[in-house]
């Protein structure tokens, strides 16, 4: 082996590498493989004649009821759709949309109220500008506690899925629209709150320090300094999360009366698969429209 090769081998052995990343990669692969091999997903045969028969029957049954077993007729299909829409689907679709809007706006308000207290550059005795006198340990400890508690609350809010929140709140508030709206609002407030807190922590120093230097207190800095700087990104986050809310709002109805999910579950229970698929299609259409609206809105905000 030549000298050069020896040098190269030594350099290779000494190369800076992240053991953490390597370990992470191996662990992730191991977990995924173990899940597939040992998780019981492959125990039953994925497909057999029984399931195939079920699927065939199902495909026959998603055809609108008045047309089953006959030739396709657009007029009758349209009439069937119109009846269902007027009866409950239209109202349920509107309700689903309304839940998503109310939830995201509420989430936005909650996030804006909570996030600054989780931002380490805002929630401290001397925001944005060091004070000439040293700050007492008590005050510093108090503010650290504020940050820790707020972050813990945000973590709790966003760790629990909206579905779980809805389930819990329905038990407490009964089957109205509020539990669904609150459930989505709480979960998304956690997500938006964390994103906003991180954004506040990364805000540019100079503008805000100068405001502090003028003697402004936190509320004034927040309104006059932080808000204009972060409004655009906040709106982008808001619309992105709204897209998720639209999807979740459909599903939450499965727990309660109000949205499309209720009718999906109801139709399935009655084995009216045609109505079930139609309700799902309404939900899918709502999602597509919502994504489009959100994309347009985000483009407007980006350009402004």
């Amino acid at each position, binding site marked *: 082996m030549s000298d*050069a*090769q020896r*040098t*190269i081998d030594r*350099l*290779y052995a000494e*190369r*800076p590498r992240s053991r953490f990343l390597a370990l992470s990669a191996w662990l992730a692969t191991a977990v995924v493989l173990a899940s597939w091999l040992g998780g019981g997903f492959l125990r039953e045969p994925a497909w057999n004649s029984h399931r195939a028969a079920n699927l065939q029957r199902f495909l026959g049954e998603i055809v609108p009821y008045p047309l089953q077993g006959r030739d396709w007729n657009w007029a009758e299909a349209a009439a069937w759709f119109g009846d269902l829409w007027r009866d409950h689907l239209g109202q349920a679709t509107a309700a689903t949309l309304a839940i998503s809007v109310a939830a995201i706006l509420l989430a936005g308000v909650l996030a804006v109220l909570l996030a600054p207290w989780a931002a380490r550059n805002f929630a401290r005795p001397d925001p944005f500008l060091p004070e000439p006198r040293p700050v007492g340990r008590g005050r510093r400890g108090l503010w650290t506690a504020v940050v820790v508690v707020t972050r813990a609350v945000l973590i709790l809010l966003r760790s629990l899925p909206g579905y779980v929140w809805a389930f819990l709140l329905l038990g407490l508030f009964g089957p109205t629209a509020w539990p669904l709206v609150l459930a989505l609002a709480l979960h998304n407030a956690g997500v938006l709150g964390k994103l906003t807190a991180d954004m506040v922590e990364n805000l540019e120093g100079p503008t805000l320090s100068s405001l502090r230097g003028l003697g402004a207190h936190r509320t004034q800095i927040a309104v006059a300094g932080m808000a204009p700087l972060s409004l655009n990104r906040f709106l982008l986050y808001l619309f992105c999360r709204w897209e998720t809310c639209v999807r979740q709002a459909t599903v939450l109805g499965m727990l309660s009366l109000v949205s499309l999910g209720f009718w999906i579950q109801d139709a399935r229970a009655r084995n009216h698969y045609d109505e079930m698929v139609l309700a799902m299609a309404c939900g899918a259409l709502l999602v597509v429209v919502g994504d489009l609206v959100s994309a347009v809105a985000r483009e407007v905000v980006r350009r402004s």
Partner: protein
Amino acid sequence: MLTGAFELDRVTVRFGANVALDEVSLNIEPGALIALVGPSGAGKTTLLRLLNGSARAVSGTVCVDGRDLSALAPADLRQLRASIGVIHQDLRLVPNLRVSQNVLAGGFGRQNMWGAVRAMVWPPRRDIQLVHALLERVGIAEKLFHRLDRLSGGQQQRVAIARALYQEPRVLLADEPVASVDPARALDTVALLRDICRERGLTLVMSLHNLDLAREFFPRLVGLRQGRVVFDGAPADLDDDRYRALYQLPRAEVADDGA
């Protein structure tokens, strides 16, 4: 096999309404060491891009080894570009790959897709030895397996040089390699490039805005101003009048600059 002889005949390059090069004629022999000088916006970068086919001439011809660049078949153009090493002003390296991988990427022009994958994932010993030798020549051998973004700006530039050299080019084009570098380092870098090209008989065309460096290291200067060649000759021939024509400084300032 490319010899590195270029012939530009009344070449005009236009970007929209903006004329970047205006009826430029230039002959470059193999092994020439040329410094492109002139004020900013004179068209130095465009001229360099013409030489490896990255810019298209609106009129006039660009010939390499006697062949017209615009008539080249795609495969031939690819082969030509693989023989021309370029050191960009912004380096254009991949920050999260290792130095060795960045340099090995210079060999993609000679390899097919599988060769490229092999080079990146599990390079042959011989190739790594070549990379190591190149890094030794530019002075950063011990950084062979470091991540690129852990290196300083000057070290990253050496990596860019090594990548260009790994192509085993016949021509080296350097676009303002020392524009934002401190004077001592600038001297080292220009000297390094000039020496390497002299050793290997490569054609070197380097654009510089520091005229003193150009005069010191290059036997031939080509001065561009507003897309036209206003000077083409040895540094000794660049007297005060021609200097002023190139940079159009008032008389008083030239006197202050001294010799």
